[in-house]
């Protein structure tokens, strides 16, 4: 795998992860500070299966997703019926617990040394395929009955509940879906870098994703994707000083919070462009016809 390919694959991985964060924050209004720990779970499931067993590549991805969903389910049970603040705090503690477990059982997980020599089974086409599937799923999820219920829950839990929406179940669905997606991005990461260790999945990574979703606009998935692209380029150019990059990103977020609280893309999606274009065209032609009549 060439250097350029690795860079592009990393951008795709980030996009999958940011999209999963978008399902939580953007669609459901859940704020998970420990989302990166699901990435860790996905990476470890895929890495362990790939190095210790001979499960086929595709199945390791599926197992990673299932693993992420299972953990999301277990963590979600106590917190989804409570205020949103609990999700942020408990997921943060969950991240620490996962790191502690991985560091302790070093005979299975390699401890702080992590897992080495994971085969690089992934290539650009597989990455692009996964990304396309994820985008397709989430776009449709956003327009489905579940997605619209999620948005109702985000805007106001109490009024959503009074409309007959089972708030706990909707939040749980979104949390499990996002857990699965993040785990998928983790599995992709394991196959791309061929090396994983537990300490690179801290809260900083989750906060990074939160910032990216926010800058793009909490209600717009296109925004998340575009901003991921921009920041990945930025972090490639500033690779030697990651602290500086984080600093720049935090300052941008502060500016946006104070002056454009809806994010750069607001409510807009790319797939609305043809519709808006057609609307505008028909209005223009209608105006032209009116002028002709006069």
């Amino acid at each position: 795998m060439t250097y350029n390919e690795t860079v592009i694959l990393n951008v795709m991985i980030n996009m999958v992860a940011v999209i999963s964060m978008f399902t939580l924050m953007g669609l459901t209004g859940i704020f998970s500070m420990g989302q990166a720990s699901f990435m860790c779970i996905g990476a470890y499931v895929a890495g362990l299966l790939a190095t210790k067993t001979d499960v086929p590549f595709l199945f390791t991805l599926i197992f990673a997703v299932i693993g992420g969903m299972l953990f999301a389910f277990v963590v979600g049970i106590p917190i989804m019926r409570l205020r949103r603040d609990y999700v942020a705090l408990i997921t943060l503690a969950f991240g620490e617990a996962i790191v502690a477990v991985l560091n302790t059982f070093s005979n299975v997980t390699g401890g702080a040394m992590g897992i080495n020599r994971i085969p690089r089974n992934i290539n650009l086409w597989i990455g692009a395929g996964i990304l396309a599937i994820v985008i397709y799923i989430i776009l449709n999820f956003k327009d489905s009955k579940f997605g619209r219920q999620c948005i109702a829950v985000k805007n106001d839990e109490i009024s959503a509940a009074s409309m007959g929406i089972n708030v706990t179940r909707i939040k749980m669905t979104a949390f499990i879906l996002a857990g699965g997606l993040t785990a998928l991005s983790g599995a992709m990461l394991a196959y791309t870098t061929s090396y994983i260790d537990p300490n690179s999945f801290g809260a900083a990574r989750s906060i990074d994703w939160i910032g990216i979703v926010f800058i793009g606009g909490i209600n717009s998935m296109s925004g998340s994707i575009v901003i991921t692209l921009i920041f990945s380029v930025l972090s490639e150019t500033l690779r030697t000083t990651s602290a500086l990059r984080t600093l720049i990103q935090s300052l941008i977020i502060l500016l946006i919070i104070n002056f454009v609280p809806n994010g750069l893309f607001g409510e807009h999606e790319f797939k609305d462009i043809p519709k808006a274009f057609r609307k505008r065209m028909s209005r223009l032609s209608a105006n032209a016809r009116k002028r002709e009549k006069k």
Partner: protein
Amino acid sequence: MMYYIQLLINGIALGSVYSIIALGFTLIFSILKFSNFSHGGVMVVSAYFGFIIARQFNLGFIPMVLVTMAFGGILSCVAQFIGFERLRKIKGSTMLFFVSSSNLGVLLQNIIVITFASTYYSYPSFFSRAFFQLTPDLTIGVTDVIMLALSSIGIIILMLVLYKTRLGISIRALSMDSEAAKLMGVNVSMVTALTFFISGVLAAVAGVLCGMKYLLYPQLKDLVMKGMTASILGGLGNISGALYGGILLGILEIFMTNFVGSSLQPAFTFLFAIIFLIVRPQGISGKFSKEKV
């Protein structure tokens, strides 16, 4: 037997620091109804500030703590002004407060990373001895005594301010209903700024104590998580709950470390928190901060 008493003492000393973190965190939660993740950032920056002034000016312990407290308060006010003032005016959603506060926390931490790099520093030793011998079997570290003393003084002053002064009444009124408080003539901006000041002072105390107990490094910010867990155990948004929750968490962590080892201790603490939330979601103190329509 003596051994367990020893563990208990250590647990309470550790817990008192967690209580201080939890109090500063809960204070903001009770008036603005969001989890203030920037609390950890204020803690780290204050801890480094205390370290610098202690080394540069050869200050003793007490003047150093006082100056650092003032610094922490002002820093927290500035952070409030940059991050939350506008949001509060436009009545932004909780999500915006979340993003803003976690972002501020990262920003403050990264300022430290850039200026000091990720190297470890340690506070100069302010005291001639390291621990007191209570009985032949019982010892208590000087840092632990100071932690307990400072935390207790801080908590007593905080309680006096909250329950005996005009400012305290305004803060509590604001935490119940900000609109009604405003109509009753409370200057909301002023009281919010002052609450952030108090919370920053508490963060500075916690930062200095943690810096003395552990080493000084940018990841000290993550200790704010302990404060948050403590306030969950005590009941989110409940001030006396934060106090109990901190002590409980401290004792729990020391006993867990003793029985399952320090490497697995975060996992068991997490399990305990999850089970606790299933059994008693309203926390020890048993009062939910209710969500209003």
